């Protein structure tokens, strides 16, 4: 080509081409994970609070939950559900809401990364962070004397179905509300479900009339189902799995219709 005017000059000769799809998705997923792990408020919700709930409620007899071993076996499935909720719902909703507000999603729409590639990268990032959370919580629970039962495959399926339900709800919220409204609502829902989602407080402590409703919410369905498998050694709870997948289908359909990228 032409001679360079001077050594320090930068050539802008066009060479347009997209990177290979797997490389784009990997780069995006890596960025998403780094953004989650770097965000102090998010770490509080995804790591600190679940670990605190587990350690605190296992060590101190806050409610009559039986022996320490019984308490840990009750709490761990609930805290795993909380971990999924914190990353797939609260974190994803708040993060996506602000990305939309700052025009980052809009700008990314002009890059070669397709939109489904962005969603796939977000899903991979959520799953990677959840893997970290589950590992950490399992280690802490083991140290507290946790005795898990049931099939690992059933647990994995439940965690994936819960992730699908929570993440579609998060995108539904982040894609329609303002970022500040999403922030407030996502934190409020986190708090409400922490209390009423069968995470630290057994659902049978609630009035009988409220229980069917709480069990039909994603947090209640996931925590109860994980408990049935991990504590009681039951097989895969198909009813709860159906509830979670129904939430994912409804929220996913609505999100696909209403999500605004800018």
């Amino acid at each position: 080509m032409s001679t360079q005017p001077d050594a320090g000059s930068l050539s802008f000769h066009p060479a347009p081409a997209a990177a290979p799809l797997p490389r784009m998705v990997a780069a995006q997923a890596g960025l998403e994970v780094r953004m989650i792990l770097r965000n102090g408020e998010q770490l509080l919700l995804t790591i600190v609070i679940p670990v605190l709930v587990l350690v605190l409620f296992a060590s101190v007899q806050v409610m009559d939950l039986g022996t320490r071993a019984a308490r840990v076996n009750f709490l761990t499935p609930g805290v795993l559900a909380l971990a999924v909720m914190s990353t797939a719902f609260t974190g994803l909703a708040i993060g996506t809401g602000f990305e939309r507000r700052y025009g980052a999603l809009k700008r990314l729409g002009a890059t070669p990364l397709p939109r489904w590639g962005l969603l796939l990268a977000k899903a991979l990032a959520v799953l990677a962070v959840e893997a970290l959370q589950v590992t950490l919580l399992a280690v802490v629970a083991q140290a507290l004397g946790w005795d898990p039962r049931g099939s690992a495959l059933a647990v994995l399926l439940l965690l994936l179905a819960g992730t699908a339900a929570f993440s579609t709800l998060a995108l539904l919220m982040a894609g329609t509300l303002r970022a500040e409204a999403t922030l407030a609502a996502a934190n409020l829902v986190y708090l409400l479900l922490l209390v009423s989602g069968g995470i630290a407080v057994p659902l049978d402590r609630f009035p009988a009339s409220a229980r069917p409703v709480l069990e039909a919410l994603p947090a209640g369905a996931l925590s109860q189902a994980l408990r049935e498998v991990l504590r009681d050694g039951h097989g895969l709870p198909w009813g709860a799995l159906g509830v979670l997948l129904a939430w994912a289908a409804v929220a996913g359909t609505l999100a696909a219709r209403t999500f605004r990228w800018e």
Partner: protein
Amino acid sequence: MPAPAVEVVDLVKRYGSTVAADGLCLTVERGTITAVLGPNGAGKTTTVETCEGYRRPDGGLVRVLGLDPRRDARALRPRVGVMLQSGGVYPGVKAIEMLRHIAALHAHPLDVDALVDRLGIGSAGRTVYRRLSGGQQQRLSLALAVVGRPELVFLDEPTAGLDPQARRATWELVSDLRRDGVTVVLTTHYMDEAEKLADTVAVVDHGKVIATGSPGELTARGASGTLRFRATAGLDVSALRDVLPEGTQVHETLTGHYLVEGAVDPRLLASVTAWCADRGVMPEDLTIDRRTLEDVFIDLTGRELRA
């Protein structure tokens, strides 16, 4: 013969009852710099964002590199660089990290370090986006538009809010893009920017292109200018008028103050000074006002460009 870089024919775009583009036509030849000039709300961003595929036109035809920006988005995205008017970066991501990320989405990106040096992003590269100054955010945004080595870039108000030094750096980069064969479409409401930088200026108002041409053509259209000087009182202005092109006016406005109105060009200036020299008269305080794009704009729209 390749299709023009951008071809917009009779674009119509409405937002509710507001008509943002009202039969707008624009052609951008490859390898040129085109400035879309107009006041706020004229339809500049709507036009550019329709070309970028963000907006669906309500009417008319839009082709970018011969392709439909929405239907052929996948093919166009690697080839087109975009600088949004504001935002576009994750708030908690460092400037250089964002730049490396967008580079990673392309097969043959520019050298990120060299680009950072070139735009003087330097130490700001380690700062997260939301803590950058407005000017630093603008420069990062510009870098993001070019890092994928596109053949066409859309820059929406690339120098809005920049200090003079940063503006010049941006202008130099835009010129270098053209030197290397990149087509540039930029919007601006700065007259001097359009005048200095652009091969073609499209003046937009109320959703239409009301004039288009090179800066020279636009300012020469119905050309008029003024030349003023001071000299000894009582010069024979009608004799001076006789040596100047037809239609030129000469007046002694105040004693010893002369005003020449007409197509002010180098030849006219030479004629005036030669005429003075023949009479042993020294023209002092000689000033020339040629029409600027600003004047053109006022003539076209009857109002000032809000800068």
